[in-house]
């Protein structure tokens, strides 16, 4: 079965430090890749997406992600975090064979400390 794995359930990080959230997926077939952020008691907001083209994708709020097909990974990075980046982050993948349905990872909770 197709799956998405976020290796870290929680990531504590100090303000202004860099952060990397890891995401791996199970299949090497054609995929579209997404990162979403969820602030407490809110819906999910799209941070960035990879559909095709350059493997380095830039999103909102200073985030970027790199698609690595050989490693089936799509890690999210930010060079300097703010307190306001405290939230839960979800990696999601559309496996083309599964139509338009998204498969989500389990989420990574980021806690930015002052």
């Amino acid at each position: 079965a197709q799956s998405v794995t976020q290796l870290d359930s929680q990531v504590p990080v100090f303000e202004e430090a860099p952060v990397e959230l890891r995401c791996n997926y199970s299949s090497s077939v054609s995929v579209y890749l997404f990162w979403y952020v969820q602030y407490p008691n809110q819906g999910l907001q799209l941070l960035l997406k990879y559909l095709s083209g350059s493997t380095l994708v830039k999103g909102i709020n200073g985030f970027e992600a790199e698609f690595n097909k050989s490693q089936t990974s799509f890690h999210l990075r930010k060079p300097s975090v703010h307190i306001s980046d405290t939230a839960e982050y979800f990696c999601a993948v559309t496996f083309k064979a599964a139509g338009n349905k998204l498969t989500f990872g389990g989420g990574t909770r980021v806690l930015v400390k002052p």
Partner: protein
Amino acid sequence: SQTIHQWPATLVQPVGSPLSLECTVEGTSNPNLYWYRQAAGRGLQLLFYSVGIGQISSEVPQNLSASRPQDRQFILSSKKLLLSDSGFYLCAFGTGKAVGTDTQYFGPGTRLTVL
């Protein structure tokens, strides 16, 4: 611009009572529509999706049902709620028509507590 609304924002219901959650989309026609549930401390589970009026696909057999009476309206229902139905319910829409081309945009969610 495209927007998505959900209501109510929060709901507390007794076990055995009925449920109706509503989702509406503005600014686009014939969207793909999705219902997800997010249980406490867990990821998102796709419950239903719809590619058109009256067309509903169920992903997980359960106590819930969905309907799409109008192009941009998606309703999640239950005849009798269970304790296990508690959670955060998210509606999403997408506009991609070719396979695998959907980018999904989420509503603000409904927090359901069944007591």
